[in-house]
């Protein structure tokens, strides 16, 4: 790496900077973009890819992949709406769907991968097809409406502005507390982490202020966004600060070494695959709630957006390195881009091309980074 600290800073935080630049550019290009209502919409749209992306990050961290997430979204949406048609209450249908669809598919994928060492790409590709087929046959190929009005709260409800602001204030205080304990540790040990921490601190602060503006001046915090934030926070904590998180990084970095270090590779793989399927099923339920119904094609191609978010966020497809924070930024870039391009009236055909180019660019940049580190 080169000596210039400014250049180094840009390189280390390229995706974050790209997101900021993209957002500012769109705000200047189209005034509708920066309205609270539009940004609130962007946030809600991002949650689906974001929630799946959290799980996908974990799978890719252990050098795996899950192509079946989109189909799980479809199956979960169909199953949850069907269950409610059979008369189950929303609060029962949701958890049952999570367990039956998410749990079962995750166990299936995880079992083949951990027990028979089938490449994840293949087994989840199979599940992609099976899942879609199941969604189509369960629904007979047609959309299923939801009659239960309480169900809509999950996907379309809001936490009103005032409680939202209170929550944001609590989050800010919690952040400051974490920072304070960390800095005390730094002073004691003399471990300089400022350069590494600063972008995160700035991003979090800016994010909180932006959230206060967006959710405080509109209808409030959308419920799916709140769910996503909680999931992301838990995942960041688990990956960065727990034994389980360590095992994921070890497993992805060097599976054989991980096994010989005493890590239960089998169990870890199964837990990860169940987690990603559960999160995908949750996304499916949230989507069905927002749409007040399910169509069997719901979630198709979501796997690609989720993988794109993870990769743009800097997680290595070879496993062993990556962060949830990066994936969130990746998901935001995709969300902002989709929204902005639609606002600017770019045809959806070109949108696909631009998205593809950005994914390629992100990976190229990542490869460049790694090469510099090795040299």
């Amino acid at each position, binding site marked *: 790496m080169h000596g210039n600290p400014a250049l180094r800073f840009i390189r280390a935080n390229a995706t974050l900077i790209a997101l900021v630049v993209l957002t500012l550019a769109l705000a200047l290009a189209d005034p509708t973009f920066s309205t609270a209502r539009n940004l609130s919409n962007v946030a809600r749209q991002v949650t689906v890819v974001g929630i799946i992306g959290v799980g996908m990050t974990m799978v890719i961290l252990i050098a795996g992949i899950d192509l079946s997430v989109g189909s799980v979204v479809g199956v979960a949406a169909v199953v949850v709406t069907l269950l409610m048609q059979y008369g189950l209450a929303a609060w029962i249908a949701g958890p049952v769907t999570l367990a039956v669809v998410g749990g079962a598919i995750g166990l299936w994928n995880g079992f083949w991968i951990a027990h028979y060492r089938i490449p994840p790409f293949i087994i989840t590709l199979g599940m992609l097809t099976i899942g879609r087929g199941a969604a189509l046959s369960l629904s007979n190929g047609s959309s299923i409406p939801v009659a239960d009005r309480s169900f809509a709260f999950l996907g379309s409800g809001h936490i009103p502005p005032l409680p939202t602001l209170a929550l944001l204030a609590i989050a800010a205080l919690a952040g400051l507390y974490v920072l304070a304990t960390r800095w005390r540790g730094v002073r004691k040990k003399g*471990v300089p982490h400022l350069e590494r921490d600063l972008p995160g601190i700035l991003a979090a602060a800016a994010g909180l202020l932006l959230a206060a503006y967006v959710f405080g001046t509109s209808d409030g915090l959308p419920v799916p966004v709140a769910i996503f934030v909680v999931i992301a926070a838990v995942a960041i904590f688990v990956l960065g*600060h*727990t*034994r389980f*998180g360590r095992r994921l990084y*070890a497993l992805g970095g*060097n599976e054989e070494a991980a*096994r010989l270090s005493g890590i239960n590779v089998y169990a870890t793989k199964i837990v990860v695959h169940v987690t990603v399927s559960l999160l995908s099923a949750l996304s499916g339920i949230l989507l069905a709630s927002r749409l007040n119904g399910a169509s069997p094609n719901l979630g198709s191609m979501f796997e690609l957006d989720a993988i794109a978010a993870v990769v743009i966020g800097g997680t290595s497809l070879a496993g062993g390195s990556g962060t949830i924070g990066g994936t969130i930024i990746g998901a935001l870039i995709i969300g902002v881009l989709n929204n902005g391009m639609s606002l600017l009236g770019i045809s959806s055909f070109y949108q696909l091309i631009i998205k593809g180019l950005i994914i390629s660019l992100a990976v190229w940049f990542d490869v460049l980074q790694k090469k510099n580190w090795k040299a």
Partner: protein
Amino acid sequence: MSDVVLKMEHIVKEFPGVRALDDVHFEARAGEVLALMGENGAGKSTLMKVLGGVWPYPTYQGDIFIHGERRQFRNPRDAMDAGIAVIHQELNLLAELSVAENIFLDNQPLNRFGAIDWRKLNDDAAALLAELGLIDVRPTDKVKHIAVGKQQMVEIAKALSKRARILILDEPTSALSDKEVTELFRVIGKLRQDGVCLCYISHKMEEIAQIADRIVVLRDGRTIGEPIAIPDITLEQIIARMVGRELTEMYPASSRQRGEKILEVRNLGVDHPSLPGARKIADVSFSACRGEILGLCGLMGSGRTTLASVIFGALPHATHGEVLVEGKKTDIRSPADAIASGIALLTEDRKALGLFLDQPITFNTTISSLQTISSPPIGFIDKSREYTLTEHYIGQLGVKASSADALVGTLSGGNQQKILLARWLNAGPKIFILDEPTRGIDIGAKVEIHKLLDRLAGQGVAIVIISSELDELLGMSDRILVMKEGRIVSEFTKANASREAVMEWAAGARRVEK
């Protein structure tokens, strides 16, 4: 001198924060074996990468002269065209291709249709193999089916096919049996006669004495003195040049007390994974005591590593017999079980089987004993405690690293090995098995590791060392077990063990009478 074929002058190569090569200069002549020695991290590999065009001009400073002509290699191809071939420690062969295909990998002879001329390819390969005196390897054999020693010969044949006149061998014997080493030395001798210039990188003093004409020592990226002819320098002087000080003792003088029996292995056997009915190891029984260092000796393929893996629960295939720890029968099915029973295994191949190279020292140190830095039920990791703990080991083992946050991939081999030792020390084993603990490690680090093992044994740990270096086993062990073809064939105590006696059993010159 007219026969100087390779001359390096004022070579400087810098990495961020490190000067890996600092004014290196030496000459090598046609028809000689020049030994390049130095501790790990002394700059040998970097030097070879500069010479092989891996670090292209102008990422280094200084001049390289080939046959008196100044050359600047911009890529490995340039170096190859100048007649330089590097044979790396890890062989660069494609296992699924045939010997001949590997030899002529990027310059296959073509027929008049522009397709590969298979007959000529195989004939040319056969001619090269014959030239090297390799009669029992067919050009059509798949590389994965021939022994490591032969694979190395194929690498040499590949170099010769490109008309290489300067051959660099990086630790060529580290994976070879004694017989294969003899074979390699015969070929080296022949190449020397043919006027090839050979640069031979090795840690093994005996080999250098046996094969090299002159020796040049690298330390901290500098050449120490001029190349000197082997008869004019003593072993002690070479070591002094390498470490910058005289080493008084390679092996600690031990005054340990042997305690009660802690590990007992009864009739252990492992089925051969591909041959039904056959065993990779069979009827292995032995025991180890607290405070004892047990040496496990045997040639490559004698079953030493398999034995260690079985005890550690790392092998998936069927096992027979039982393992007792502290007199109690165990049911070890995974490394996790073994660690829980107080057994640790330092694996042979630290990069493939041990380290997480992209992770910091802290991560690598604590991965096998996360319970020491975290608390149930969610397993929250106390990073500040982890950092302190890691710094403690860095200090205790004398690891050279910028901080506990340094990525393990950036450390030298000896320091990496120390990190693996730290990992297992932190797991607090009662039985510590080490598979080739000092392979590919410089002498300074080696002595430190020996002392550490002696100290550990003194604290009541039972230590089992597997090593291909007989001197190490003889120097360190209280008892030596000799393995051959999956069985323990004899046992020596420190008093009655000798190089010759142990080798006789290991090589099969003597057999158990039935």
